[in-house]
């Protein structure tokens, strides 16, 4: 994969280290062979005494130490490169997500994004820690060995040069065959391997129907089928290693034969050369073979890298904030929607030219069927996504011309499923405050949001850990925590996504009372699902298919808009029957 190679090249220092260490490694491998041969030759043929070879023996130990050391440095450099790349990718992904993850979050892809950030980035590791260093090593070391052999005995060199290319050729041919075969088997494999999970997941159902025991045999069978399907794929891979082994072994045997024959029959080769060649030949082939296995681990990285790069290249609509101050006035800001358009991308849902004006401290209900664009409109109003066309005017100025912090300081957003951060209840409420909130203020807010009583019953009270890994709260309790945040913040604009179902009466009552209280001093814009909210709104924005089809009060819309009328009346009819 090109991108990965480029990234590797950019780490110049590491690359130079790899090249240098590979050259040194090649040198010590040759030196090792040379010294061993010198020692054996002196003792065995020249009949020298032991102390003559001592210097060579001592040099050899240095060389061997060097060999371990250079191998270690190469590995370490690869590991460092991998770490750097992983860090950079994570950082890039995070800052991309931080800029605009809303589209992903809105499309419900958060889980997938977590997996890219964690798993895919991790999988890139082996390209840098294994494949790349091995590749550099394999481009350098075998050539050096070959040169050394050529310098001593060109016939052996020739044998190796002729046989060596078969290794990559076979790797490619068989690699392709394996891939094709495994693609053929892919569906089967997925099906067999999924069976165990499928049965485990359905175990409750199976038990309830008294069918669980029968499934034992199904598990055995699918496991064995999986084994057989995998083995057909693996067999090709094994045959490929067999061929590689054959090539290198036969080549080495050929070299041994050649030097042996020339040594004895033609007597035109000294023992020194013959032994030297014989020690280096396996080093040569080992280096080539190692690339093969490194390639295997590098390939997994490439798929993962593609995922990460695709993610990084995905276009975004960044939200740019300005630096105009939004001074706090006595009354909430006036908001004006001018021809507001937004699209989640081609072919998907879009919002088409919404025009409306929201006077300070008014009470607006956004009404429409699901998928009509209500929530998108609410997100646009919050400023976390930017309209593709048109603008939102706040006190006569474009929303995004203001400082981000100052707008958010005046805003509260109460969603249907408020997010609880891992931390204590106190921290979770205090997050609403503009500055560090005292426990007294937090308690007061909790009181107003009708959750103080429930908290006081907890063993650790406001210090109870909630959120990820902490204690779970019911939907109604989460809503009340969100309300407490709003009470603490005292915002001038409140965006509220009214729950559709499933709250307890206590929360329902608290919600009604609290929203009324908050509405006295703030502009409240609600995606409304309850008739009383709609009836009491100063203005209703009635949405259908991304368009604002009508606006006015409940009574006005009942008179003027038949679609609205039918929606309300059909609903009422449906319930009272």
């Amino acid at each position, binding site marked *: 994969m090109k991108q990965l190679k480029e990234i590797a090249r950019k780490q110049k220092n590491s690359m130079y280290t790899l090249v240098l260490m590979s050259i040194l490694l090649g040198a010590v491998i040759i030196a090792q062979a040379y010294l061993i041969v010198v020692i054996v030759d002196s003792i065995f043929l020249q009949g020298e005494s032991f102390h003559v070879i001592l210097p060579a023996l001592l040099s050899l130990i240095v060389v061997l130490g060097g060999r371990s050391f250079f191998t270690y440095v190469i590995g370490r450099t690869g590991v460092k490169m991998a770490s750097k790349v992983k860090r950079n990718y*994570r950082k890039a992904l995070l800052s991309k*997500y931080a800029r605009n993850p809303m589209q992903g979050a809105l499309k419900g892809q958060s889980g997938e994004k977590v997996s890219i950030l964690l798993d895919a980035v991790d999988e890139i590791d082996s390209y840098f820690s294994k494949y790349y260093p091995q590749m550099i090593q394999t481009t350098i070391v075998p050539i050096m060995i070959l040169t050394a052999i050529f310098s001593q005995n060109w016939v052996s060199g020739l044998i190796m040069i002729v046989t060596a290319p078969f290794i990559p050729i076979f790797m490619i041919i068989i690699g392709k065959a394996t891939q094709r075969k495994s693609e053929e088997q892919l569906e089967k494999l997925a099906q067999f391997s999924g069976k165990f999970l499928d049965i485990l997941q359905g175990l409750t159902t199976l038990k309830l129907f008294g069918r669980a025991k029968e499934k034992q045999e199904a598990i055995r069978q699918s496991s064995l089928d999986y084994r057989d399907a995998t083995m057909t794929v693996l067999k090709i891979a094994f045959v490929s290693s067999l061929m590689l082994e054959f090539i290198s072994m036969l080549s080495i045997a050929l070299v041994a034969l050649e030097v042996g024959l020339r040594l004895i029959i033609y007597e035109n080769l000294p*023992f020194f050369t013959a032994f030297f060649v*014989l020690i280096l030949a396996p080093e040569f082939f080992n280096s080539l073979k190692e690339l093969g296995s490194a390639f295997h681990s590098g390939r997994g990285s490439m798929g993962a890298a593609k995922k990460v790069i695709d993610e990084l290249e995905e276009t975004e609509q960044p939200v740019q904030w300005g630096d105009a101050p939004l001074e706090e006035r006595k009354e909430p800001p006036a908001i004006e929607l001018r021809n507001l358009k937004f699209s989640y991308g081609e072919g998907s849902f879009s919002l088409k030219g919404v025009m409306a004006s929201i006077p300070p401290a008014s009470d607006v209900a956004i009404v429409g069927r699901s998928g009509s664009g209500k929530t998108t409109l609410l997100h646009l109003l919050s400023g976390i996504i930017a309209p593709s066309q048109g603008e939102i005017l706040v006190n006569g100025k474009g929303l995004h011309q203001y400082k981000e912090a100052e707008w958010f300081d005046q805003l509260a957003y109460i969603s249907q499923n408020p997010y609880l951060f891992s931390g204590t209840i106190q921290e979770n409420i205090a997050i609403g405050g503009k500055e560090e909130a005292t426990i007294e203020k937090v308690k007061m807010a909790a009181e107003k949001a009708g959750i103080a009583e429930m908290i006081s019953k907890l063993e650790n009270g406001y210090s109870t850990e909630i959120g990820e890994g902490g204690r779970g709260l019911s939907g109604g309790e989460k809503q009340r925590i969100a309300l407490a945040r709003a009470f603490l913040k005292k915002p001038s604009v409140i965006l509220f996504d009214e729950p559709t179902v499933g709250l*307890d009466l206590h*929360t329902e009552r608290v919600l009604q009372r609290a929203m009324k209280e908050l509405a006295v001093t703030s502009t409240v814009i609600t995606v409304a699902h309850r008739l009383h909210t709609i009836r009491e709104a100063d203005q209703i924005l009635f949405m259908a298919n991304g368009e604002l089809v009508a606006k006015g009060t409940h009574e006005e819309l009942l008179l003027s808009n038949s679609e609205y009328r039918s929606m*309300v009346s059909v609903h009422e009819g449906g319930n009272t029957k």
Partner: protein
Amino acid sequence: MNELRVVIKLMMKEKKDVLLSILFGFLAGMGAVALFANSGYLISKAAITPPLYILTMSIALLKLFSVTRALSRYAERLYSHRATFTKLSNLRVYFFERLEPLAPRIFHKYRSGDLLSRIVGDVESLQNFFLRVYYPPIVMIIVFLATIAFTAFFSIHVAVFLILGLILTGFVVPLWFTVKQRGILQQLRELRGNVSTEATEFLYGFRDLKLYQRLDEQEKKLTNTADGYVSEQERESVQELSNQSVIQTLSLLVSWAVLGMGAYLVAGGSLDGVFLAMLVMTSITVFENATPMSAFPRYYEDSRRASSRLFSVIEEEGMETRGVEDDWEQIDLTKAPAIDVENLSFTFPGEKRLALKNIHLSLPAGSKTAIVGPSGSGKSTLIQLLLKMNKEYEGAIYLNGTSVRKIKDEAIWKGSNVIMQENHFFYGSIGENLGLAKDDLSEGEMNAVLEKVKLEEFSLTDSVLEKGGNLSGGEKQRLAIARAMLKGSKLWLMDEPTSSVDVLTERMIFDHLLHQGDDDTMILVSHRLIGLEKMDQIIVMDQGEIIESGTYEELMDKQGYFYEMKQIENSVLM
């Protein structure tokens, strides 16, 4: 090793494959040693012009050894992988045999949804046990012993060095790194968990983080955690690398010592010089077999953990179920039973808050009861206790006057048609999934129920993907109802069976249900308050308590909790 006892036991079931793997691994290892020893001997001999027949023999042997090595390696791979996959199959079956009696209770105990994928993953990761932990050391030891025996024939000293090498590279170093690695791997898992949690928080909580201006803070925190995780990964890789380097250094040192000792002996005249090259080549080659030992620590630790996690699930649970088997009471569930609940209280394990508080209920045989209330009020828990999916509660539940504690779990399940909130559908066809309900169902019967639940457009041969992935929520619910209808038991336990079905279809299905189950006892947990007029009794729950109960008219007249919920529901659009 204790944690891996069962795995080893299961593996030894495939004795033939295991032995063949070891045999061929040995042959492959020895093939290489013999090949290089022979070539060292060959050229040494050649240097001193021996008789030609010795050379020809050596050359013939050379070919034989290379072919042996290549073929043995192939056979070794084949058999070892076969053994591994067969072992996985045995392992799955073994595990399932033991998990099966514990379900479904165990799923309620471990509330985390990833228990199952963890089980599957753990079984999968045990495939490395045989391939990289179990047999490579065995092969290594045998190859070394054979080689040592061979060298001892020429020089005891050389053999001693090789023994030393075997002990160091085969035992001391891998074990030392295994111990060192354990701490790092543990740390690594924790850090990974933290990254995952924080990333989840970052992405799922994005909107709130952004609006509360905590996004930068969280981004920094996450970046730091992720960096820490990478650093720890680096530490782990470097550790493994060190292990590899130490093994390599030791191998080279031993070969060096063999060379030095050999040279010394030859110079002193106690070893024939013609064997020197051979001994050196032997030593260099035999250490190839030590290479897999550098991966040993990691795979050993992985396997150990996977195995201990896997079996802790079933062992711990196994304790609880034993001992009560003997005195089950038989009750007749072929007729609609009466249900009585007395003073029932229940807390989920690990939680303080009561999920159910002093519940009293009396449902006569053949009665129709609806349980309503906000989410988290304890409605579903009541059904689960009735089904004995959790047994650690106070108070009692009676079926026809017999405490369910004394009734066999299977008997209750057999006697009831259960529709849960989440119903599983298996990979296969619609027909196969419906067929679970009862043996020998005819196609006609199945098609008839499909029609009743308004799924007449489905054919029995239509395929179903895993977890019913190709079905909508409403379709799955209706299919679950169809399956329950086919089962035909006399007690109906339904937990929000139609929450994703539109109101009109829901009513039609309920009409069929009430018709079929006219004489049956029915409990319906419902979120919606529509269509409850026909029920004999409505139980209203909030925070684990029964707040009110009565018929629809009674509750509406009373203008209490139910009435108010009804008012709210009426006022909710869509």
